[in-house]
């Protein structure tokens, strides 16, 4: 079974803030890491490969520095890594990102299953997976928390539906997004790290794609536009109270009484 896992490099912290006066984003260190949900996606793919054989490829999109997450995937045991990186893809929203990944998947070739993390920790939308499935015209299921059965033609999964869960059977090729419950991700292996230290990352550029119409990618391929960014509103009627622990406990007690909470 050939599996493609979509992964993303995300900021290591969420300490990006806007300067209220200038509207400029303040950058505090640019450390980044693999989106934590993607570790579950990779683990699921490796688990299936262990059962059925085949290959696991990791696909990501971003600046050249995002090679780091592919190397991380290699350390976990992923066979091939692809990085889609081109300025022409910059500024992509869900629509354009999913389209670019669609072109990336097309250039990788045949696959039986695509696995994505439930969402990323920077965008938190969880929409790119289903959007990619729509471009590929394959079925999908999100929030998969258990794999009941998997073979070359079908996969049976249990999907979290918040108040219930559904056991769904879908044919391959298909796309699933996996939740944290699915399985415990392995740690990167030192041996694999040494083995794959010089392993190449396949870079996919605009010219590698079947669709050579620039306006389908990046900002021009996006349907949404960010009009402005601004710091979160602050509450103007706030009351700040300082004092000793005892005084503060008494104050909170009075507030709770005034709010009729006790």
């Amino acid at each position, binding site marked *: 079974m050939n599996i493609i896992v979509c992964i993303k490099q995300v900021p290591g912290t*969420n*300490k*990006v*803030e*806007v300067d209220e006066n200038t509207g*400029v*984003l303040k*950058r505090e260190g*640019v450390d980044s890491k693999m989106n*934590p949900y993607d570790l579950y996606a990779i683990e699921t793919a490796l688990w299936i490969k262990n059962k059925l054989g085949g290959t696991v490829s990791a696909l990501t999109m*971003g*600046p050249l520095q995002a090679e780091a997450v592919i190397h991380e995937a290699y350390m976990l045991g992923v066979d091939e890594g692809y990085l889609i990186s*081109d*300025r022409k893809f*910059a*500024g992509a929203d869900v*629509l354009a990102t999913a389209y670019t990944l669609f072109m990336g998947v097309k250039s990788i070739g045949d696959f039986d299953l695509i696995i994505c993390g439930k969402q990323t920790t*920077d*965008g*938190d*939308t*969880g*929409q790119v*997976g289903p*959007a990619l499935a*729509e471009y590929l015209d394959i079925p*999908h299921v*999100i929030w998969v928390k258990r794999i009941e059965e998997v073979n070359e033609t079908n996969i049976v999964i*249990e999907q979290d539906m918040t*108040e219930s869960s*559904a*056991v*769904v*059977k879908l044919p391959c090729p298909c796309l699933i997004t996996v939740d944290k419950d699915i399985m415990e991700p392995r740690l990167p292996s030192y041996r694999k790290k040494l083995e794959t230290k010089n392993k190449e990352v396949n870079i996919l550029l605009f010219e590698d794609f079947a669709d050579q119409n620039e306006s389908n990618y*990046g900002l*021009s*391929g*996006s*349907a949404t*536009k960010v*009009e402005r*960014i*601004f710091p*979160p*509103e*602050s509450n103007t*009627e*706030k009351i700040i*109270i*300082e004092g*000793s*622990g005892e005084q*503060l*406990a*008494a104050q*909170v*007690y009075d507030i*709770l009484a005034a*709010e009729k909470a*006790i």
Partner: protein
Amino acid sequence: MISIQQNKCDLCGKCIEVCPFGAMEIVDGRIEINAACRVCSICLKNCPNKAILLTDGIRQKADRNKWKGILVYVEHFEGQIHPVTLELIGKAKELASKINHPVNCIFIGHNITERAKELLEYGLDKVYIYDHEEFAYYREDIYTNAFEHCIKKSKPSMVLVGATSVGRSLAPRAAVRFRTGLTADCTVLEVKENSDLVQIRPAFGGNIMAQIVTEHSRPQFATVRYKVMEKAQKDIELIELSKNKWQDKLEICSLPKNKMKSQLEVLNIITKQKEVSISESEVIIAGGRGLKDQKDLAMLEELASLLGGQTAVSRPLVEAGWAPYTKQIGLSGRTVRPRLIITCGISGAVQFTSCMNTSQCIIAINKDKNAPIFNTAHYGIVGDLYEIIPQLCEKIRKGRIVDAI
């Protein structure tokens, strides 16, 4: 795409300094932009020589006048309508009244036609009903087909969907089918006179809000989480007046046979044991990184039980494995809107605050006077939770005894 007019650039480096994504660099004595660019345009605004240009591609523009109305997706489980639907209807009615558009619903399921009448009590113009046994449970392929059918038929300007397990699966699929924009987890929705939907949400994984529009395409898709918007109110007068006209407002729709064939097979539905979700709780005591040990959560549990509420946590505690993610408030967890929330040792990143800032009374306890949570709180308590909480619990217990006497 961002481009640089090299003849105007004097390599002052201002753009490198202000770029939040490290996308500007000097290569061979000129500024180059790499693939990290997210077209935020900050360099554009900050270039003293106006050497940076934003070139937008040519996108075919949809005719705004051809798309009218707001379509709300009715989220339900076996016909039981999810309350997020009523919140979306409330917001849709408010937006629609500003631009004089109708508000319609799309209801896909099995044996739901009677249920659809309940929705009319909220003052809708129309409910499009797709009632078929094949629709008994959510299956993304045929549900998307029904959604597509309804959008082609009704040409709505906007489509609002709850950001639930169904909505998050269905909305992106449908939006891509129309090659249009979708904004997830909007916290504020407004409308411009020209019917452009102004969508505000936290962005870039930082402490930042972004205002997003879908200028050139229709319909404009947005998802909103449960407990973010105000619920619609039933219109009593309207119910009496229009009862006999209800049949006209229910439109039964059906799909051609080939569009009803699903590739997915729902083998089983497992209902979970009912536990009150934190979203439903009226009182929440939330703990964050200020807690030193997992066992200290017991202190918050005690306060929660004294106040008749539940405990919740911020993301770091879930990542540390101290609490299940069903207890997490935030963009990667739940949104809450309780009567009272007390945050304990939570600094207040926007991913957290945007999911609790509509709570009626917010009390924040934090040692750091400069913690951003104090911008959200109604009462900011600058102090040590380890001193305050136990003494507070003690006072509440004593107060009860006094009352009892």
